[in-house]
């Protein structure tokens, strides 16, 4: 499981201790579900964020 406190410090977020104490269990739970599921994701599965390269009508 990621060390959320270390991550917060490394990102310079300066989160208050009481916030971190409440955040950690929630993120642990979410991350556990994610990790379990990701293990079964096929290598070729692409994220569902569609990027389309379209013609540029203003291009010369």
């Amino acid at each position, binding site marked *: 499981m990621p060390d959320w406190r270390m991550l*917060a410090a490394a990102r310079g*977020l300066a989160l208050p201790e009481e*916030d971190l104490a409440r955040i950690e269990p929630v*993120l642990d739970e*979410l991350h556990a579900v*994610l990790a379990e*599921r990701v293990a079964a994701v096929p290598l070729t599965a*692409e*994220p*569902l964020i569609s990027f389309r390269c379209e013609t540029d009508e203003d291009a010369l």
Partner: protein
Amino acid sequence: MTIREAAASLRTRRISSLELTRAALDRIARCDHRLRAFITVTAEEALAAARRADEELAQGHDRGPLHGIPIAVKDVFATRGIRTTCGSKIFADYVPDFDAAVVERLRAAGAVLVGKTNLHELAYGITSSNPHYGAVRNPRDPDRVPGGSSGGSAAAVAAGMVFMAMGSDTGGSIRIPAAWCGVVGLKPTFGRVSRYGMLPLDFTLDHAGPLTRSVHDAALVLNALAGFDPRDDTSSRHPAEDYVPPEDPSLDGIRIGLPENFYFTRVAPGVAEAVRKAAQRAEQAGAGVVPVRVPDVAAMNQISRIILLAEAAAVMQPYMERRNEIGEDVRLLLEQGLLLSATDYIHAQRLRRLMREEYRKVWRQVHCLLTPTMPVSAPRLGQTQLHWDDGAEDLRPGATRFVRAINMFGWPALSLPCGLDAQGLPLGAQIIGPPFAEARILRVAAALEARLPRLAPPEL
């Protein structure tokens, strides 16, 4: 009174838009100090717009069924010259110089905007207990929350202040308050209604849609809103259609799936019974109701939460230096999002694709799903947990179990009042369909509405 009834009265001159608008403003003046449904009331502009509507109708210039009808929009939709706070102290003084697409379309349809409704701060929560603009109260029981984040919109419609109010829905924010306040809430397909000018909570989960007092009214509003908008990258070119269902429609040939897993577990007494009764009414209207198994919606909810946490944190990251001006519950969510990694987010988006493929198989078996909207009726103000025989769960993830996942797939869904629990609080049935099946969903909802008892207006 519904939009349809008011529109008919306007055309026979039994009532004027000015009278309707004055009545709406009077109702707001009398009730809103208790309900806190509005952040801004635009009385002078509304009265001027109502006079114009009456003049146009008298001259035979009829803009359609919304012409002259008092409405409101959630305070996430930009309004030219009217502050748009997003329920946040950070945006308390933001006055846009343009109208959001839905505001443009509603104005073009002749609707009269009477104000901007209160909401959960930044549209990021389900109680609408806003620390800056007041806790919205449920008109059915002011000691209870209306739901959220579009709580002010639902309360305003349920309390008879306006005929329709626009909401936004990222993880249930139209359907939750619709169910808890006893009104109709429609979340159209992602891309069906333009999000141009809607302050974002999340880039890939936000939807805009109406809350109304009837299914027919929701269809009338969608007719005015649906269509492609080049200013919104996610707007769909799928052709819009006439969404208004026929009177008491037949459901012959419609197969409705009643989930046999997930959607009927951990629900309060009365919830399952009310939805199963609605299924019986669908059968009476000619539908086939069949049991279906749905995939792991609990995991889908978790993945959806990761996407929301990350995207909402990205939206608000530039403002996090002012975190002390953000309410505690929302601040904690934003901080969670800031700690997720890019890899976590991308994995969640990969799972989103796989989960959609898994869930969409249900559309090969049925035309729509019928589920409870919420596992419980409206909680009390300040309530933070749901209690079950086998343990407790936090209100937010617990209450959004049945509404959250489908926002990941962009599917349309509608919440319809389907009865009252033992405490006299409204319960909602949710109809979910495949992409762009709004007309079908509205048809099913209209058939159920015609066969279910109408809720009496709340006593205020």
